[in-house]
């Protein structure tokens, strides 16, 4: 079934405001909800937060009061959408449980995007990044068992494996090497633009989350691990945002943002297992369709172009949360020892990488290694959830303390 958001009308903007009662949504259940429902909530929150931050930046660069008012009006509704979406997160839950769910999102969303991305350079960027999120999931899962005395398999529910990826200590690259080449807005497939925006938004909210919840922990290892992985999120946002063509006009970017929101709400409406949550995705899709029309009208008026020139003629196949175990194992097998050099990828540890490693580690083991050592001390071994057999990389197989 094809769906072209440009041809659909949604709820008129002046009827989109919700009152307190309508905003007061029930959270999902921490133990009975579909883990991928939680993933969809997190992914959409990332999309909404990016829409808000982008709109604020746009307003700060815009002198036209009428445009600023239009942006403010849509933005207020998007704030309400963010409040509804993120308030669906399971409750009660700890920040660390939400963290593990964030990493599950990063793993299964990035893996799906990597599988679907038509451009080989962009695909490589996602394949490179996903092995790092995969390792973060493993490090936080070890922290979770240590400080909350519970296994992460209760959270990921066997849909995502919890095993080492590219070891976190090697993610600390010189910032120079985190900047990628952008796609070319005139030749890139519309789906490539949507993918870049989606993954950038997901990583950005992870960065924001860790920078705020990390200091709320008292346990020294938790505080340190959030700092370390928080700094890698900075690298990931740099990596993904540099994929987006900076030559796009503000109007074009606005249209792409609104279109991507339509795409994701539509995708999740198609794939959601919980009928109550599905109804919310459908409602928000019907709001986004009007936001898209506002953005398209602004583009026509100020950019003197038709939005159809930059958008896909219909929505691409729905973004789907599903297990990517075999795909991830194949990447573990072939790309675990990659790092970046300039805008490309290499296997050898080059001089700038080595210098960064020496400086940041300061001759000691980083928190991401300490967390595993501490877990081994307490439990005799690290925590893993291996559902598909032992680790494909022999050097990363489980060691048992004698």
């Amino acid at each position, binding site marked *: 079934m094809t769906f072209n958001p440009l041809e659909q009308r949604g709820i008129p903007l002046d009827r989109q405001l919700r009152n307190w009662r309508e905003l007061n949504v029930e959270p999902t259940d*921490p*133990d*009975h909800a579909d883990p991928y429902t939680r993933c969809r909530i997190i992914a959409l929150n990332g999309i909404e937060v990016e829409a808000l931050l982008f709109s604020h930046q746009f307003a700060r660069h815009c002198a036209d009061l009428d445009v600023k008012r239009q942006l403010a009006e849509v933005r207020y509704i998007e704030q309400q959408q963010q409040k509804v979406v993120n308030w669906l997160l399971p409750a*009660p839950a*700890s920040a660390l449980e939400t963290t593990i769910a964030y990493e599950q999102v990063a793993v299964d969303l990035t893996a799906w995007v990597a599988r679907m991305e038509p451009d080989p350079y962009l695909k490589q960027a996602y394949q490179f990044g996903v092995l790092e999120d995969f390792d973060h999931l493993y490090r936080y899962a070890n922290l979770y068992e240590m*400080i*909350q*005395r*519970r296994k992460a398999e*209760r959270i990921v529910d066997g849909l995502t494996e919890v095993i080492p990826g590219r070891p976190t200590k090697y993610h600390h690259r010189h910032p120079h090497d985190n900047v990628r080449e952008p796609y070319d807005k005139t030749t890139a497939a519309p789906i490539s633009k949507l993918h870049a925006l989606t993954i950038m938004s997901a990583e950005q909210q992870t960065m924001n989350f860790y920078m705020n919840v990390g200091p709320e922990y*008292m346990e020294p290892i938790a505080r340190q691990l959030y700092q370390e992985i928080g700094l890698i999120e900075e690298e990931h946002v740099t990596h993904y945002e540099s994929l987006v063509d900076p030559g796009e006009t503000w109007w074009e970017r606005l249209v792409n943002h609104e279109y991507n929101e339509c795409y994701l709400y539509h995708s999740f409406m198609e794939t959601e297992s919980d009928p109550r949550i599905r109804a919310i995705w459908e409602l928000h899709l019907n709001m986004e369709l009007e936001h898209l029309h506002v953005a398209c009208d602004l583009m026509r008026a100020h950019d003197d172009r038709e939005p159809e020139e930059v958008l896909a003629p219909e929505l691409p196949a729905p973004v789907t949360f599903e297990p990517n175990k075999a795909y991830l194992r194949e990447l573990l097998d072939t790309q675990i020892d990659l790092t970046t050099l300039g805008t490309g990828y290499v296997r050898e540890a080059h001089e700038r990488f080595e210098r960064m490693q020496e400086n940041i580690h300061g001759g000691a083991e980083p928190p991401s290694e300490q967390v595993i050592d501490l877990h081994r001390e*307490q*439990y005799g071994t690290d925590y893993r959830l291996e559902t598909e057999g032992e680790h494909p990389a022999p050097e990363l197989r489980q060691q048992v303390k004698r």
Partner: protein
Amino acid sequence: MTEDVIQLLLGQHGQIRDLFTRVQEADGRDRRDAFAELVRLLAVHETAEEQVVHPLARRAIDAGAPLVDDRLAEERQAKELLSRLESMGADHEDFLPLLAELRASVLLHAHHEEQYEFPYLRHSCNEKELRGLAVMVRAAERVAPTHPHPGVETGVENLAAGPALALFDRVKDAVSKAISTDDRTAG
């Protein structure tokens, strides 16, 4: 592994949470057995909190008294729900909705402790003291009865012979006694 009392209680929060899921997903005899196990763990856990952790929190945390009063009120509420579940039995048609209510109240209670009590306790008590308390709670747990009616081994007979709530009270008595004995020896 030398655990301290906070780690011990956190671990029990996780077990209680998972046991609720087990009761909710089982039926018949499995449900009755899982429920009896849940009742026992709740009894051990709440007793340890009431006898060991809350008194400590009252003393050690700034403005700890009202905080502990709130936790005790939550525990009383849970106990009432447990008592109603007990009298209706695990096969009653209203059992699962009421169990869901108990679960929500217990999970929220645990969440409050994890947010507002445990971190402050760890901050204001020394590690040796917290480890000593864990040893005391573990010892008390060992003397707690495991079955609603000693000598009766199956869930069905248990339910017929002695209500789970009676077990709750007996576990609490045993654990309290063990803890207070330990206290005297230690003091």
